[in-house]
């Protein structure tokens, strides 16, 4: 629905008399980064957020990365509320009662730090406060219900408050994965079930010492664990991250698989908590929080056009998530910054049409966002084509079975063992040719 603002003026009489250079919808990482960039450059910015305060209801895994936010706020980590500096990342491939694991631990991740674990309730609030201090006007507990358009151009937003219309030269849409506003613009449709996954997460409290012992950590060191397998043969990824004195544990599963198998996401999480490798890590912990959220998984092929007359869209609302590397917040921050910079340019030129705002599309195209997502664009197709049972059920199990055989000392000739291990994997993939095909497809999917 669109409303013209002249008809409104006569109809309702009173309007918020203020006009803004830019209106940002959503105070997640993307929106706050955009608002900060614009406010710092002296633009008059409104930052609208539906939560009681930014981050109030937002969740993620979550790992926060240094680089992209550093480009915006040098040494930001010295003031931001963070949990632990990640010095070790582990990958677990789970079988029914087993795990094959890889990991990398490196002291070099300390100086300069690469990533931290964090909690959105605190982090989003902090980042938004930076935008506020730079001069952005916070309008919280306020939902933007629609965009106001005039002659096909976005000229403002309508909110759920009385006299709630707000006008600005341009609107930055940073309203997250569900982006109702993006849909209203027609830049993207309702996401298909194979373009999003549903994640559920628990925050589990554990005494600090116990946590540090279990994860092999000291002081402020942190560790992340991602796991695949043992998710009822559905395409999914689990995660277990160390905070100061809590553990973030969750799983995200593709919505189409959840639908097909008629399994509830919390059932997957409950099952995961019983896995012997995970059960021990969280033993004795107390569940403090429970939450759920969608994750964009469509990647490159699902990215909508990023700008138009009077608007730009960034972050999750534009499907900017690199699921393979669990990067999202950094893409959100980087795109918010680029949108903000383009807005500043538009302000200088006095041109808010796609001619100038299209600069944002071009900058994203040259950045890591476009390039990384492009590299993995085949993944979405691979998942679509392949049976999730094979990729996320049989193969991880087969790898575990093969590892078991390989390490079992039972007098069987090693040559035999090797044959058997390969056979196990081949059978899981559905035969020689299929294993080869999967290998090639997989390679292509992750190499653009």
């Amino acid at each position, binding site marked *: 629905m669109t409303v013209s603002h002249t008809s409104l003026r006569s109809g309702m009489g009173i309007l918020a*008399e203020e006009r803004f250079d830019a209106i940002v919808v959503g105070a997640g990482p993307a929106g706050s980064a955009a608002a900060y960039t614009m406010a710092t450059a002296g633009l008059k910015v409104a930052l609208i957020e539906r939560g009681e305060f930014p981050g109030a209801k937002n969740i993620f895994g979550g790992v926060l990365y240094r680089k992209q936010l550093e480009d915006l706020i040098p040494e930001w980590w010295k003031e931001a509320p963070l949990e632990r500096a990640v010095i070790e990342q582990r990958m677990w491939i789970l079988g029914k009662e087993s795990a094959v694991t890889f990991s990398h631990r490196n002291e070099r991740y300390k100086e300069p730090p690469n990533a931290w674990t964090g909690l959105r309730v605190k982090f989003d609030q902090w980042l938004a406060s930076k935008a506020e201090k730079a001069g952005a006007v916070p*309008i919280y507990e306020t939902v933007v219900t629609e965009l106001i358009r005039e002659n096909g151009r976005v000229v403002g937003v309508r909110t759920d408050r*009385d006299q*709630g*219309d707000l006008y600005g030269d341009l609107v930055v849409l940073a309203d997250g994965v569900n982006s109702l506003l993006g849909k209203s613009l027609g830049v993207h449709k309702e996401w298909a079930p194979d373009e999003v996954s549903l994640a559920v997460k628990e925050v589990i409290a554990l005494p600090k010492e116990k946590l540090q012992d279990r994860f092999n950590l000291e002081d402020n060191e942190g560790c992340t664990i991602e796991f695949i397998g043992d998710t009822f043969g559905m395409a999914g990824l689990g995660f277990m991250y160390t905070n100061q004195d809590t553990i973030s544990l969750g799983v995200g599963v593709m919505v189409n698989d959840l639908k097909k198998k008629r399994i509830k996401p919390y059932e997957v999480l409950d099952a995961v908590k019983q896995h012997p490798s995970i059960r021990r890590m969280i033993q004795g912990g107390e569940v403090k929080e429970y939450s759920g959220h969608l994750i964009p998984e469509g990647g490159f092929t699902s990215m909508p056009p990023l700008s138009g007359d009077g608007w730009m869209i960034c972050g999750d609302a534009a499907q900017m998530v690199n699921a393979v590397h669990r990067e999202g917040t950094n893409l959100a921050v980087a795109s918010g910054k680029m949108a903000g910079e383009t807005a500043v340019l538009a302000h200088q030129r006095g041109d808010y049409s796609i001619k100038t705002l299209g600069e944002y599309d071009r900058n994203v195209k040259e950045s890591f966002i476009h390039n990384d997502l492009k590299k993995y664009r085949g993944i979405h197709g691979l998942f679509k084509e392949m049976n999730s049972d094979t990729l996320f059920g049989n193969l991880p199990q087969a790898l575990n079975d093969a590892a078991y055989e390989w390490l079992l000392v039972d007098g069987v000739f090693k040559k035999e063992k090797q044959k058997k291990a390969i056979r196990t994997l081949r059978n899981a993939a559905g035969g020689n040719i299929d294993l080869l095909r999967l290998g090639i497809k997989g390679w292509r999917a992750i190499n653009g």
Partner: protein
Amino acid sequence: MLHIVVCIKQVPDSREIRIDPKTNTLIRQGVPAIVNFYDLHGLEEALRIKDEFGARVTVVSMGPPSADKALKQCVAMGADEGVLISDRAFAGADTLATSYVVALAIDKVGKEWGPVDIVFCGKQTLDGDTGQVGPGVACRLDFDQLTYVEKVEHLDDSKKEIIVHRHLEDGVERVKTKMPVLITALAELNKPRRAALPGVLKSVRYQPVVWTTNDFPDIDRAKIGLKGSPTIVGKTWVPEPKKVDTQMLTADSTDKLANELLDSLFGTELPAKLGWA
């Protein structure tokens, strides 16, 4: 024009308060602060009067500097000015010391922005629950006090008359009085409004007026803060849950169940108490 003062207090959000099982005290840390629920009903009534007759609404709060957020919220809703009475010397006040300072402040509000016609307070606070500050302020200002008001029936701004309904234990009292008057608000009085967008924008930039002890040259320092607070908390405890007899009713149809329920109710003293039997 009428001048209405609303007294508010910032309190911890009781919906999020937990009790430390070891020490039996409230865990206040990390609990978000909100405007005391009943005070918002007082503010809403003041704003309704302002909408209908035109009035100046001044909000007064005694509290730490962080209570400016509560005053900003009131300005977002439509109050004209917020006054924060904040000074270390006021800290630790009980209801006696608080009423003394709040009354002084309202007196000063009258001198600054014109004589006060109505003062609204909440029935009580969520964290203290005493309900003593409103009446304490009324006595000191020598205003008529109308406590536990659930309805403002009529207001005549030229005759400065007001008719309200007071909710009492055994009924409702309809009272007519002359202003100035102090009213303590019940939740039944109204439904507080959501701030309109222009109000929110105004409140973002609004800075409340701050008064410290220096703004009250004649203040009696023996009557403020901890020193002016004779209240002694003898003991606090968490009441044991009351044990009540529970009777479970079962029947194969809802009609039968309802009849059984009525039968058993009429077997008690309740109907007589309620005047049904």
